[in-house]
């Protein structure tokens, strides 16, 4: 935090770069003393709780036009969500709802309206535990970064697997998240669901966040199964073993029972002072089992 001659705290200097190169240059200049900010909603809580010190320089990326782009490439069926797109915009965007409905549902479940008006998709993703992530993970998400040039691309899941231990990404600027719209095979039905379970019904930290997407062929066999789990301080991930197991099988009692057991065994959520690991495992297994049952009806 900045301080005057007497050591009394002052507000940080706030910079408003107009393009990604300028923003990145500022970060290069200030190093650890400079912090990128978009909505600032998470940073505020970190400063207030003492988890992070208020930096000397805040680099507000909100003025960079490029980061506000939201669009769909009709040909490749890929969506582009600029890092500055707010959660409110995601929640109300017809484009998102049409192509990536789980993301709409996720945004509806994050924080409260006043916070969603400020908070951005970029911030939610970079928190590593945001409730948008399980939904995003079902759409083959790719992160686009600026690290001196605009070329760096990295699958979200890859970034999540190392982000907590390798902090190099903190020097980069996230430009956008790119999503692929799942294609629907002929004669199949797609089934999607998103759940966030907290300690209350709204404006609550997540205990379990689950997203599921699958195809049912005419004889009720499953294909293109995608399941992601997160919640609390658990870094979300896809359940690849479960997805592989279910592919080609009907969602019958036997399969559901086996999936329930696989999740209890393999899902490793983090507990906290309020909700133990045991609850999170069981609730996650229940949610996925119940959705498979619903899909099979």
């Amino acid at each position, binding site marked *: 935090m900045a301080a005057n001659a*007497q050591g009394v*705290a002052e507000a940080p200097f706030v910079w408003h770069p107009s393009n990604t190169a300028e923003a990145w240059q500022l970060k290069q200049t200030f190093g650890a003393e400079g912090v990128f900010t978009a909505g600032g909603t998470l940073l505020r809580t970190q400063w207030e709780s003492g988890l992070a010190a208020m930096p000397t320089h805040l680099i507000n990326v909100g003025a960079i036009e490029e980061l506000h782009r939201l669009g769909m490439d009709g040909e490749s069926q890929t969506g582009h969500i600029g890092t500055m797109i707010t959660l409110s915009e995601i929640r109300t965007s017809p484009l998102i709802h049409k192509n990536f409905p789980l993301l709409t549902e996720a945004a509806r479940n994050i924080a409260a309206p006043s916070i969603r008006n400020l908070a951005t998709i970029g911030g939610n993703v970079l928190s590593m535990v945001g409730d948008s992530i399980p939904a995003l993970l079902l759409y083959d998400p790719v992160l686009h970064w600026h690290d001196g040039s605009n070329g760096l691309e990295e699958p979200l899941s890859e970034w999540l697997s190392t982000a907590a231990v390798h902090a190099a990404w903190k020097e980069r600027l996230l430009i956008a998240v790119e999503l692929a719209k799942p294609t629907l095979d002929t004669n199949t039905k797609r089934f999607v669901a998103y759940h966030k*379970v907290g300690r209350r019904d*709204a404006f609550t930290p997540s205990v379990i966040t689950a997203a599921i997407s699958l195809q049912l062929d005419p004889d009720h066999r499953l294909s293109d199964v995608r399941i992601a789990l997160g919640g609390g301080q658990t870094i979300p991930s896809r359940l690849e073993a479960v997805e592989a197991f279910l592919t080609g099988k009907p969602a019958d009692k036997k399969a559901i*029972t086996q999936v329930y*057991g696989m999740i209890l065994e393999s899902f490793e959520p983090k507990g906290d002072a309020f909700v*133990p690991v045991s*609850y999170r495992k069981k*609730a996650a297994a229940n949610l996925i*089992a119940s959705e498979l049952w619903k899909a099979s009806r």
Partner: protein
Amino acid sequence: MLLNRKGSGARWRVRPDGPDKVTGKLAYLTDMTNPDMLIGRVLRSPHPHARIKAIRTDQAAALDGVHAVITHKDVPGLNRYGIAHPDQPVLCEEFVRYVGDAVAAVAAESAEIAEQALKLIEVDYELLTIVDDAEFALTGDAPQLHPQGNLLHRKTFSRGEVNAAFEQCAHVVEETYYTPRQMHTYMETEGGLFIFGEDGRLTVYAPTQHGFMDRMQLSRILAIPQSEIRIVSSPIGGSFGGKDELNVQPYGALLARVTNRPVKFHNSRWESVRAGLKRHPMKISMKTGVDGNGRLIAHQVRIIADTGPYATLGAEVLNFAVEHVIGPYRYEHVDVDGYSVFTNNGMSGEFRGFGGNQAIFALEGQFDRLAEKLGMDPWELRLLNMRKPDDPGPFDQPIAQTEGAKQVSAAMTASSLWQERGKHLGAEDEHAEPWIRTGVGAAFTMHGAGLGFGIPDPGAGKLVLASDGKIEAVFSYEEFGQGLIATLEQMLVEQFGFASEDIRIVIGDSDAVMDGGSTTASRATSMMWKSLQNLRPLFEEAVLTKASAIVELPAGQLRFGEGGIYAIEQGSDAHAAERLMTYRELAVAIGEPVTCTTQFHFPTSTTDLVGAHFLYTYSAVAVKVEVNQLTGRIRVLHQYHAVAAGPVINPQGFLGQIEGGSSMALGFALTEDAVMSEGQYVTKNLDTYLVPTIAEHRGTIDVHPIEDLPQEDNHGPRGIGEVGSVTLAPAIAAAIYDAVGIRVTKLPVDPEILLAASVDQLLEKAVSGE
């Protein structure tokens, strides 16, 4: 009849303080500023238990913009506070006993400078063993937190021989119940503005529920006469018992005195959580026995209340809990043993329900369990053992006799919600998801009002025809959102015939009002009603006699009305009568204010048991819940509250109190707990301490007031400020059992115990037969 806007007709009035509140125009006391003011901050102990070896303030005092740094050495009078027993240091001398304990305070030109100054104060601590468990505190191994030990208060009540009586019981239920450290979570955190005037008097603008108590306590701390202090204590942005005790006032007053500048305090939510009061977490163990027919024989209770480091009203809360674990039932043999125990956890104290919430959760749980053992309907078991109107109170003390118990029970069992019970089991919705289960449960309470026998509980009020022609109603009570101003205005309009524009309400200013006691214990409406009953003949006599001389009509032929004095015309329509003169004309003609006052004591029982109540409100609550066995989470779908509390004085206020109380009970039951670990709050803010949101309130709430009182009863409306918060939690527990067959013993309900035990159970209906 259910209470609602439509059925209330013209009695449903716009709240006088409503428009300014919803538009944000109203300035609360913590919104006040002064151009010369300094900002105050308190340095609180980071340690739950430590010895202070040294405090060095030089660096902080030398910081530019700092006007004063004070420690215990700067307290001129008694360095202690506490409503019932002053044992809490204003500024700690030798020991700190919880993480909110104040060690020093600073006044500076800005909040930033004040906070920087706190960082520059050096305190050397020697860490001491933390006493974070009330039962451990009672053992010989625990460090003693006070010279008298770790027991603040023990309260017992017994009759008969319980141990022998259990031998005769056909069924005995033994269970231990746990309740959470609930926070009041008022929207306005503690704070205020403190100004010494040119006349040397101190004016305190700070929320409190008893201005005169603050005045007395501050005079003791500052060592100045009470007459040198004025307390302005209204309006308040919520209190629920949490601002009855002093909080920042001692520091504001001391710093204003030292600096001779106005000083403002306003706690952050973080500081409010850390320093403020909470509901006493209680562990209540009960053993209750019945004969083969369900007749109660013996009831044994042990209560351990974690009162935190200092007394405040811990003893009184325990007394209330001891009375209410006996409750509205009759037993041959009773033995209650309650302990209020000092620990190094957060401060516990006064909170809406005052120990009744914990007691009734446990007591009602016993009835549900006994009924199951007996194979009896749980409500039949209650009715079988319920007190009769002429039975004495829980402490065998004489109480005001009413039919309240029977009335609320009859109303509740006749409600459509209760009638629905059991029906859902046979006819579950084919399309419902198999993991959704619904259940209906009910609970019952009698809740005492007033402070109880042996505690000063004064009532007072004043009516004035002021020089400007306004009818002034002057009371010491505070408006903290409960609707006191609206209720007072409604009584003046309905009972005297005034128009609302004729009235000026003066409350919450110790210079202007008489001490009518605290705005607590569901008592303010009762006391205002009684005051107006006393004042009406006096005021009519005083004002109409003077008017009589002026209008040259006998006083007996005059009456109050909208805007002025009217003649009572026998046989004709009183409303068509012509106004003889306005109040303003009358006031001018009289030439001086006309004042009438009344003073009395809250009605008490003829007993010698401290805390025993005389007036009770009765309530029966039914609730329908939905349990989601995927997540263990609960939705309250429908509530029904029958409340026997005498006449409804203000329909909107009555409904608001029951709904608001039930909202707090919902949090108590399902989401709220200020979690502590080794004397530190884990829930430091509202991002982890979760009060219910509007999403939890999607269910409907029916409120059914029962207004009849016996002919000879002259005590008027009973308290309703707390009762709505008491009975919902045990009803929810009963409904959960009805839904999924699982007993709840600990609040807030742990969702994990309600999860489906296996995937087979989860999908039982779904995949059976596939």
